């Protein structure tokens, strides 16, 4: 078959497509790009895709396929056609995320202090008590400026109704922002003109914004900031190194740090140097074997005590994972109303909480239509996708739900929106989600862009990279010229 890298025959089928409207016409922000791609000489787009793949390999943005011995490495799949977010959609997303993060931060602070949300009977006490990621050790902590979740990556999806929903909050160590920056870098060199003419908002300021956010946590004028990684075997190691490099700070492992005279210090070639702020990319459980898991080899003994005394700042604060519990997620709209007195701008995906008897009854009767999720699993694990499940699997989940209703929620199966990807010489639609990144420093700031993850398998709804997902550059169209100058 003749390769056809134009969109003349592209079929958006019955789905919401991010680049084409229901009449098959390019959406406003996508016109320049679509025309540009349609006008390319045959074979050109493929060549640009391979140039990008080579660049990603050279940059070492790879994972090893089987055993290091063989040395076969692959890049994380990247598709050349960007996802475009129209300015008016972005305004909603931005306002919605700011509101949501503010409420979530208030919630976390409340949970570890007076628990007013429980006194007010908004969140049942049992649900909090049974949240696996609730950390008793954090009770009464007072992080600098009352900020707990400095860095967030919220997963959004667009349903067939065209509306954008929040699928998940990631308040622990959300990863992926380095791909946003790298994807942008390679795309800029592939489509310089289309990029410029499409008025895409820049994302390059993220590292300096992140630096400012972290710096805000220390009273010092020039604090020593470090990024803490579990090490090179962590799947997000590349990102840890990238962010440290872009911010110009040290990348440390637990073994580089040691608590000395009430402070955290790092071992340098000329002695110990005090550390003021740690952007830790390592889970609560592992940061301090004295406070959390005693078997952790990755952490720093005594770190939490230094933190408690205010002699070091941690981002994110320990304990934020409580808001990642999928049952607690269901209460975020109520949190927004309770703490801010506002209606949520971005809706949650409708969620059935199995702990509630009437919800449970409904879920058990409709397992074949719903997506069931365990409260504390991530990465697409511990899930039942009803329409694609067998009777046996549904039976098993029914048992699990009845045995431990607190641990399960269910949501309707959503038709995620799609974006064209290049496959075997033509374009086909694939489902995507969107993870924007939010920084909470002096103010709340939303990076105008985000990670678009795409389920590369035909028909698949699972976008996780561990399960065959890839990524795309995300172009947020500027509403005004001033937005281009950030």
């Amino acid at each position, binding site marked *: 078959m003749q390769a056809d890298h134009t969109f003349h025959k592209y079929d958006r089928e019955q789905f919401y497509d991010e680049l084409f409207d229901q009449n098959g016409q390019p959406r406003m922000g996508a016109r320049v790009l679509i025309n540009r791609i349609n006008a390319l000489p045959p074979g050109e787009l493929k060549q640009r895709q391979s140039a990008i793949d080579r660049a990603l390999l*050279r940059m070492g943005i790879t994972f090893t396929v089987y055993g290091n011995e063989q040395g076969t490495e692959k890049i994380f799949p990247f598709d050349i056609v960007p996802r475009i977010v129209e300015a008016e959609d972005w305004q909603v997303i931005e306002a919605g995320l700011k509101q949501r993060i503010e409420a979530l931060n208030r919630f976390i602070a409340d949970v570890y202090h007076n628990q007013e949300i429980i006194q007010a009977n908004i969140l049942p006490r049992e649900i909090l008590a049974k949240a696996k990621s609730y950390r008793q050790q954090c009770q009464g902590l007072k992080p600098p400026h009352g900020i707990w979740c400095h860095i967030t990556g919220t997963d959004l999806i667009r349903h067939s109704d065209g509306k954008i929903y929040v699928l998940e909050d990631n308040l622990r160590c959300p990863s992926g922002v380095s791909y946003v920056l790298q994807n942008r870098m390679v795309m800029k060199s592939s489509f310089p003109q289309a990029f410029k003419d499409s008025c895409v908002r820049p994302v390059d300021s993220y590292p300096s914004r992140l630096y400012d956010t972290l710096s805000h946590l220390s009273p010092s004028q020039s604090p020593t900031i470090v990024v803490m990684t579990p090490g090179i075997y962590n799947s997000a190691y590349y990102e840890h190194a990238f962010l440290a490099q872009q911010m110009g700070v*040290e990348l440390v492992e637990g073994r580089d740090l040691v608590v000395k005279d009430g402070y955290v210090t790092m071992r340098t070639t000329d002695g110990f140097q005090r550390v003021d702020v740690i952007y830790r990319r390592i889970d609560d459980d592992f940061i301090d074997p004295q406070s959390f898991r005693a078997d952790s080899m990755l952490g720093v003994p005594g770190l939490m005590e230094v933190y408690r005394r205010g002699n070091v700042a941690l981002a994110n604060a320990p304990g934020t994972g409580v808001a990642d519990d999928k049952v607690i997620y269901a209460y975020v709209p109520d949190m927004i109303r309770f703490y801010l007195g506002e209606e949520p701008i971005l809706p949650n995906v409708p969620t059935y909480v199995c702990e509630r008897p009437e919800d449970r009854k409904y879920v058990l009767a409709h397992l074949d239509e719903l997506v069931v999720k365990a409260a504390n699993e991530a990465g697409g694990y511990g899930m039942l996708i009803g329409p694609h499940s067998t009777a046996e699997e549904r039976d098993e989940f029914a048992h699990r739900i009845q045995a431990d209703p607190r641990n399960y929620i269910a949501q309707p199966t959503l038709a995620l929106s799609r974006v064209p990807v290049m496959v075997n010489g033509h374009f086909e639609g694939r489902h995507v989600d969107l993870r924007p990144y939010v920084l909470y420093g002096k103010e709340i700031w939303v990076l105008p862009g985000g990670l678009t993850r795409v389920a590369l398998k035909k028909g698949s709804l699972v976008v996780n990279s561990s399960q065959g997902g890839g990524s795309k550059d995300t172009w947020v169209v500027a509403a005004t010229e001033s937005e281009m100058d950030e």
Partner: protein
Amino acid sequence: MLSRVAESIYWMARYIERAENLARFIDVTLNLILDQPTSQVPQWEPLVNTTGDEEFFKKHYGVASGENVIRFLTSDAKYSNSILSVLRLARENGRTVRESISSEAWEELNEFYHYVNAEAKSDTALNSPSDYFRNVKQHAHLFNGILDATLSHDAGWHFANLGRLMERADKTSRILDVKYFTLLPSAADVGTTIDDLGWSAVLRSVSGFEMYRRRFRSLRVKKVVDFLILDRAFPRAVQFCLSGAEWSMREITGSQPLTYRNAAERRLGSLKAELAYTDVYTIIARGLHQFIDDLQTKINSIGEGIHETFFAIRPVENTQSQLQKQA
């Protein structure tokens, strides 16, 4: 800088230098064989001997044929000092400090690794050796050039410089040692045409032929030894390497010339002084092999000193008392 980071940068640079020198070792041997195809002198075996891993070689390869030795030293993933393996190590070290080196240096390290990895699969070192060895050397030069041109010359760069110069000093002396042995089987050969060819090949292997000519013109064994060990300006001469290493170490520690604060500085300074105040006649009179053996022992002990002084992770209490002692 972080001790762990310093250590990784040091080793990254050392491994890259090692890969380059392995390429030079094999390349000079290939050239010698081309020049004297009928020679009865075994050319490949001494190469294996310099690695100190004869047992591994015998077990996995048996005969020291050209093909076996080249495969052993270039593409054997199981042998930890093959070009492929040292590149892998250089890259793993680079990966742990990629925030501390420039993106350009990291990208070149990747390209270098991918090149060696791909060529190992297609046996390029055997099929088109001159291309292969030229490319390995080019990549190493490119990497070093990028380090010099894109990295701030602060502690990190000085650790890299220290690593590559210590490695180079060691390897230049080894090339000289092994070729001295194979080229001078008997005193009768001295001054013959074969001998000339041999020594010019040795000089070429360290890119030193032209520079040697500018200084000495005629080929004489003593002068070659003088040049490769004692020259102060030629960048692969042992003396030059140790001077550069000493400079970098002082930049790291802040010690004044002719003083020392730790074992590494003391050992390096004393070896440098020894070379500065000897001459080639003394070296030859003592026996070149003996001299080089001794030199390598000293270079190793400087390496150990560097490890103890800058990299070793000590328990907090010990380090504290050490710092107090120093202060």
